[in-house]
């Protein structure tokens, strides 16, 4: 065989660079901003924009690990219940006399354990899809929250606890800073590390990954555990913003989170997509909601708009592909 020399560089084309999904999201965010600014004089005020982020960033913490989960072809619909359970347990322990700091640690631990249980069930029972496993645990976790708190709300947290969700550091909301730190961390984890590369490998071909020495089960459990932990982080911020907790908080968060991840261009089918897409999607949906809220669009219109946006965002790439293949045939 004659030795062959392979080219050293990847071919770079501006077309493929700018045809990336993330650019479309950037354009959409700009379009939404322009629309909002023209509809409402209040939108472009710095204080308002800044405070708006405080309103939608709580669930964004779950978006980060959900990107990993969906990339691996799994899904976790129990995250909202984990938020509730860790919030309720934190509040319950605090009200039973545990210092707030320790109660928070316990809340985070509970979330982590819930995530770990999800992960263990998913890898031990591979014949059940993660939808089913987390559907069941979703009901169970919230069920436990009901058992613990019954019909009570629980609150009366120390003042400093409210800082999490409401305070600013140097004029920037603390929650935004925390999210930025987490987002950079998760982005780094996904795109720069061995761990992230393996997550992509599992998403594309789990069997081949296993045969290549990737510990698929271990990584899956870890990712689900991370999702549990981040759900608990969301629980901290949400509880701080609400000042009290109940067994029915955060209901419906799972679907919103999944919608954001999908809108961010993360595809379950091919293990494709990037963290930045999901983060952009968080801000796109957040600003769209906030802007339409500023002009007091009714809740039902908002539902319809968000539904159509989700459909369109996944339909556009599909249709593009279809047209391309139609031209071929």
């Amino acid at each position, binding site marked *: 065989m004659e030795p062959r020399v392979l080219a050293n560089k990847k071919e770079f084309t501006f077309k493929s660079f700018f045809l990336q999904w993330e650019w479309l999201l950037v354009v959409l965010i700009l379009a939404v901003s322009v629309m909002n600014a023209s509809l409402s004089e209040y939108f472009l005020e710095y204080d308002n924009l800044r405070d708006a982020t405080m309103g939608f960033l709580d669930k964004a913490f779950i978006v980060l690990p959900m990107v990993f989960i969906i990339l691996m072809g799994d*899904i976790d619909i129990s995250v909202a219940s984990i938020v509730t359970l860790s919030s309720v347990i934190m509040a319950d322990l605090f009200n039973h006399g545990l210092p707030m700091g320790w109660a928070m640690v316990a809340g985070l631990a509970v979330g982590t354990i819930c995530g770990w249980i999800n992960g263990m069930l998913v890898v031990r*029972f591979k*014949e*059940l*899809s993660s*939808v*089913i*496993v987390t*559907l*069941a*645990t*979703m*009901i*169970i976790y*919230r*069920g*436990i929250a*009901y*058992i613990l708190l*019954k*019909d009570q709300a629980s609150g009366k947290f120390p003042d400093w606890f409210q800082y999490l969700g409401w305070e600013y550091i140097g004029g920037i909301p603390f929650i935004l800073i925390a999210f930025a730190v987490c987002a950079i961390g998760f982005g780094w984890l996904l795109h720069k590390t061995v761990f992230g590369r393996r997550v992509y490998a599992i998403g594309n071909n789990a069997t081949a990954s296993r045969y290549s020495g990737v510990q698929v089960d271990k990584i899956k459990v870890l990712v689900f555990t991370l999702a549990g932990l981040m759900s608990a982080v969301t629980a901290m911020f949400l509880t701080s913003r609400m000042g009290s907790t109940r067994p029915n908080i955060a209901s419906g968060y799972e*679907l919103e989170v*999944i*919608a954001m991840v*999908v809108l961010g261009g993360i595809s*379950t*089918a091919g293990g494709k997509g990037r963290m930045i897409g999901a983060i952009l999607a968080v801000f796109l949906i957040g600003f769209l909601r906030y802007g339409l809220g500023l002009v007091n669009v*009714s*809740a*039902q*219109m*908002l*539902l*319809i708009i*968000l*539904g*159509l*946006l*989700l*459909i369109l965002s*996944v*339909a556009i790439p*599909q*249709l593009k*592909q*279809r047209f391309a293949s139609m031209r071929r045939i």
Partner: protein
Amino acid sequence: MKRQITESAGVPGAQINIGKPARSVSEMIGKFRELGLLGFILLLSVGVQLRNPSFLTWENISDIATNTAILSILAVGMMLVIITRGIDLSIGATLAVSGMISALLVSHYPGIHPLLAIASGIGIGLICGMVIGCLVAWVNILPIIATLGMMNVYRGLTFEASGGKWVSAHQMPTGFKAIATGTLFGVNNLILIAVAIYIVAYYFISHTRSGRRIYAVGSNPDSATISGIRSGRVLWLVYTIMGGLSGLAGVLWVSKFASAQGDTASGYELSVIAACVLGGVSIAGGVGKISGIVLGSVLLGILNNALPMIDVSPFWQMFIQGTIILIAVLINALVKRGIDRNHLMRRKI
């Protein structure tokens, strides 16, 4: 018994063989799934009966059946969807929008024949289903995403259609309310409609080509394409049927509760999916039986009926339901492992 056919065919008997005895074992295990579910239902019933003697009365059983009817009608459609490896989260919203529109219809034209009201509900459901069918079958959107998006849209439309109002009992003609309360030979109409749907669905999925193709597409989409099955059409059909059944369920729901609201049946899709999963429909596609989902729906129906009757604290109900679902699917998985192992052993003999 190793070489039954080798002499004539000259094929080594190691792989190819008749497995009649082994097959009956695996069949038994297969049936065990449903028998197990039935056994569990009976056990539960006896347990509840001991706590509350009015549980196993004719009246209560008929109540359970009536309350389960709508759930099981939806479960039939959901089973077809899941067999094709899909899922439909929009059914609660579809149910609400078709229920609301047919309620508005009868409140504006009280003279309308109840059958026409049913037809209108089914019609609207069909349209909703068709849209989702198109998105899934031809735009290739993942079912979970397509139905999540359309769920929002349909729910929004329900509110828009009603303008935030409810349609109440006094606005509905008696004939319309009688759809769900009427009886034939002493059996509630809802039960009759549900049974009729089981029968039609059973015939459809086991004795017609279109029905079998649903299984084929779910079992192996690639070979379905190659054997000339237009999987797009099958998918579209499945979501359209689901929509039609949701529409029917919408009318029945509104008629049964004599009230149409914007948030009718929100979150109901999870109960329906749970019924299917309990009934042994595999999310991986290709597997599912009518008898299974009927049992699954009945189990959920009994839980809904029995937990209040045996004075379980309302705060425990959710946990108990979730735990039963989890245990059921885990046992299901373990039994399936048993079946697979059995197949494997058969292979070796």
